[in-house]
């Protein structure tokens, strides 16, 4: 059969057209999604709009001042393939100075490595000099970092931000979500220069929501003074660890919170131990010891089983479950009928144990009713062993229930009356103590005063009292008892006339290898103060300790309190009565 050339040509053309149509069908119908994605990848710009991390402020009188901020820093990167081995060291060595982290020989040792970081966290001034040098193969990458204008001030309260941008410890850790904000998204058509174009119907711009600028109730000046005093006292007393808390008992606002030793949050990796990060005021439950007699006696007053004048027979030792409970002061003249005020003055463990017996309706036995009543006040009224809700990372601690299935529940409760066999935090104790002395109302402690929005300070509304912890009468009686305890015999002359200052010491043995150690104790003092005749204006709590050392509430914590008290009194401009 003779083929017609025209027919062959037509058939050939038809075939080619058919193949093209088939290919187009495949591209446009079958592989549609894949090709759309490929095309989009080439002309779509998709950027995450990074939310700016919120700043942290402290109060300076009535004005908030930034203590944690953000700064733009730069990473200097070199491409050894493009950079000049002669020119680069000559021009950048001096500019970068000590910030250079790479040796020039190493940078140029392997030129196939096209990305070499030679300096990190370079500040703008230096980065501008690098840019001005206009060197081939050198570029800058911007980033932000946290900066701390006040240095180490309140480091354990503030916390830090790790390399992944996540807050750790302190306010940074506890309020990470509020501080972080929400990243935005930009997706647009772009041109060859990577410039976002407004053409196209699928452009998306979701603006970033910057993190909140948080204002703390902490007063910068007071915090600084408190930290200086702690440093000085640590040196004088010869103790490594001191924690202190200053709060307003009328509102629950924390005015200062300090821990020694601290650390530099700008150089957070350079610490001797991870324990340096811990805020012992809120994260480290411990046995506060005899300061808890305040709460035991308040419960006794509430149930009407004791008055400051009521007496019991003190032998300087009493037995519970066959275990002896001794007084720390074994004075012969204190044996006999002793008033509860005297028991508090001398911090008698036998006295607080007797209150527990009375709470149960007995003179000589610890009964379930006594345990239940004490627990109700400790746990439900005073919030001991319960997270306070402060805007920090908190440990709850442990307060055993009245029917806890533990060995020697009665002796446990007898110990609890003077703050042992229980674990609570300083913030729990100080908040409960505030409730006892402020007229009886429990305020949840807070460290957040408000926010800075568009440069304006927006203050939080004053929170209401959470509950009534004790009656006004009990509160007044306890203030008087604590005042007497402070002034009766140990501290005459410390407090100036016209001021009303009360407080209680505590010395607890530390648990070492599962048993109470006789070689290591922790000292506590919690006290209140203000103008005589008025409700207290501040509560200060101090804790002193060090591994392997014996610290006493009276010998170590009380002197620190006294210095802090004078400072707080002056700073808050508290007038003596009659002025």
């Amino acid at each position, binding site marked *: 059969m003779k083929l017609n050339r025209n027919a062959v040509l037509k058939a050939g053309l038809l075939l080619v057209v058919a193949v093209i149509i088939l290919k187009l069908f495949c591209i446009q119908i079958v592989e549609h999604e894949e090709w759309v994605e490929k095309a989009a990848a080439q002309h779509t710009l998709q950027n995450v709009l990074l939310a700016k991390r919120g700043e942290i402020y402290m109060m300076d009188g009535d004005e908030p001042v930034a203590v944690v901020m953000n700064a733009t820093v730069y990473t200097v990167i070199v491409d050894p393939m493009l950079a000049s081995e002669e020119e680069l060291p000559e021009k950048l060595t001096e500019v970068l100075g000590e910030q250079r982290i790479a040796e020039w020989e190493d940078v140029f040792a392997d030129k196939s490595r096209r990305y070499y970081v030679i300096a990190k966290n370079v500040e703008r001034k230096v980065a501008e000099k690098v840019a001005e040098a206009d060197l081939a193969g050198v570029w800058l990458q911007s980033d932000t970092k946290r900066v701390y*204008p006040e*240095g180490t001030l309140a480091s354990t309260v503030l916390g830090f931000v790790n390399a992944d941008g996540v807050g750790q410890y302190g306010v940074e850790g506890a309020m990470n979500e509020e501080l972080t904000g929400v990243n935005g998204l930009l997706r647009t058509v772009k041109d060859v220069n990577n*410039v976002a174009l407004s053409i196209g119907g699928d452009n998306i711009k979701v603006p970033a929501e910057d993190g909140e600028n948080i204002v703390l109730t902490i007063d910068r000046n007071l915090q600084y003074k408190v930290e200086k005093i702690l440093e000085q006292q640590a040196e004088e007393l010869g103790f490594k660890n001191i924690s202190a808390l200053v709060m307003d008992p009328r509102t629950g606002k924390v005015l200062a919170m300090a821990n020694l030793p601290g650390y530099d949050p700008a150089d957070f990796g350079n610490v001797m131990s991870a324990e340096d990060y811990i805020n012992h005021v809120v994260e480290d439950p411990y046995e506060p010891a005899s300061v808890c007699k305040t709460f035991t006696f308040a419960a006794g007053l509430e149930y009407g089983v004791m008055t400051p004048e009521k007496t019991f027979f003190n032998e300087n030792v009493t037995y519970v479950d066959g275990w002896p409970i001794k007084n720390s002061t074994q004075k012969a003249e204190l044996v006999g009928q002793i008033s509860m005020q005297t028991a508090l003055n001398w911090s008698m463990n036998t006295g607080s144990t007797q209150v527990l017996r009375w709470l149960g309706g007995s003179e000589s036995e610890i009964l379930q009713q006594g345990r239940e009543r004490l627990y109700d006040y400790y746990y439900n009224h005073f919030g001991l062993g319960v997270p306070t809700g402060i805007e920090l990372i908190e440990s709850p601690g442990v307060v055993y229930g009245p029917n806890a299935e533990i060995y020697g529940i009665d002796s446990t409760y007898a110990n609890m009356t003077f703050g042992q066999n229980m674990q609570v935090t300083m913030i729990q104790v100080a908040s409960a103590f505030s409730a006892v002395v402020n007229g009886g109302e429990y305020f949840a402690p807070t460290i957040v005063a408000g926010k800075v929005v568009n440069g304006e300070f927006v203050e939080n509304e004053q929170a209401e009292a959470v509950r009534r912890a004790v009656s006004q009468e009990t509160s007044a009686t306890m203030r008087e008892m604590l005042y007497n305890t402070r002034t009766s015999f140990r501290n005459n002359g410390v407090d100036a006339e016209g001021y009303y200052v009360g407080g209680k010491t505590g010395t607890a043995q530390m648990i070492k290898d599962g048993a109470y150690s006789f070689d290591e104790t922790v000292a506590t003092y919690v006290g209140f103060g203000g103008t005589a005749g008025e409700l207290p204006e501040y509560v200060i709590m101090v804790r002193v300790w060090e591994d392997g050392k014996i610290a006493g509430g009276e010998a170590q914590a009380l002197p620190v309190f006294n210095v802090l008290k004078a400072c707080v009194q002056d700073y808050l401009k508290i*007038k003596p009565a009659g002025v």
Partner: protein
Amino acid sequence: MRPQAYTTRRGATMGNWSRNQNTVRHTNKALGSISNFMIIMLLVLIVGLIYVSQGAQATNYDYEISAIEDEIAELEAKKEDLAVERARLTSIAASESSTVASSMEDANVEGYAE
């Protein structure tokens, strides 16, 4: 002057109809197919040019916006740096160790401050 595209037959038919005197007759005067095609192509071209010019103008604006946004970001970064510098200079430690503070004498007043 071009002849009218319609003629009235008013005079001619007046005798026949007493009503309906406004009747007109249209004369078909359509453009040729090439002219139509050219006009359509011209219109398409004009619309295309308008579209391209608008697109180019939008892109120009995008470049301007991009440049302004870069400038804003740069200024904000500078502002932040200045705020940090200010905070450092006014920090308590800096104030305490300043030459002014170091030349001051300690207060020696007992009692409370007012």
